[in-house]
């Protein structure tokens, strides 16, 4: 299973719609970094609106991909984290500090636009 990555001008957009298993998550990490490299994207939005479970492994992969993209020079924003997912992550003790987030895809794009200086 592969998560599709869409290019929109200087940005990459990802909407995760499937139940993520570990392999899919790792594959996604590789795919995203390769796509940033190939397209020269400066901003990425990963929308998690349809994701109803984030366990410690998936959280680690997401947190890592934000740091990795950052190293390459692309800013990542996670959007649409559901209330139940946010509560569960905090129960688990996972705070994802330093990971930029926004309420939804639209706000995520606004945030990127602001941070990257239009």
């Amino acid at each position: 299973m592969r998560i599709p990555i869409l290019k929109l001008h200087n940005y990459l957009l990802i909407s995760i719609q499937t139940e993520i298993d570990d392999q899919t998550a790792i594959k996604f990490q590789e795919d995203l970094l390769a796509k940033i490299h190939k397209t020269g994207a400066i901003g990425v939005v990963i929308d998690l609106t349809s994701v109803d479970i984030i366990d410690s492994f998936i959280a680690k992969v997401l947190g890592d991909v934000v740091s990795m993209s950052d190293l390459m020079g692309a800013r990542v924003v996670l959007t649409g984290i559901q209330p139940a997912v946010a509560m569960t992550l905090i129960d688990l003790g996972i705070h994802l500090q330093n990971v930029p987030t926004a309420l939804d895809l639209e706000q995520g794009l606004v945030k990127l636009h602001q941070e990257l200086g239009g």
Partner: protein
Amino acid sequence: MNPRSCVNIHKEWDIVGARQLGREMAKEIGFGTVDQARIATAVSELARNIYLYAKNGQVCFEYIYTNSQKGILMTAVDTGPGIKDISSVMQDGYTTSGGLGAGLPGVKRLMDDFDIESAVGEGTKIKAIKWIR
């Protein structure tokens, strides 16, 4: 009649299978979305521990009833290497796999009751209950 459903854990995809079954059963007995997510996440953590450390095991779910409460009991059993020092794995931040170390203390916080038994060389058995509020 109180049916018990189990998922054998021996490949990575079984982690997804276990959490889907856990969520399904939680939903059916009447847990809200937040508790369904808590239960499914706890299952995912336990199933991943089995997959990573023991290679083989089983996660089972059953409904439990008392006079005033109903809930779901999950049991994660493996015949892996066992845990030498249970108190250390129950500390936040402990990990041997390079993960986030959210594992067992996280599961304990997600659930209401939590019990672990382990013997080195024999395996580990974890029982966790979530009650409907």
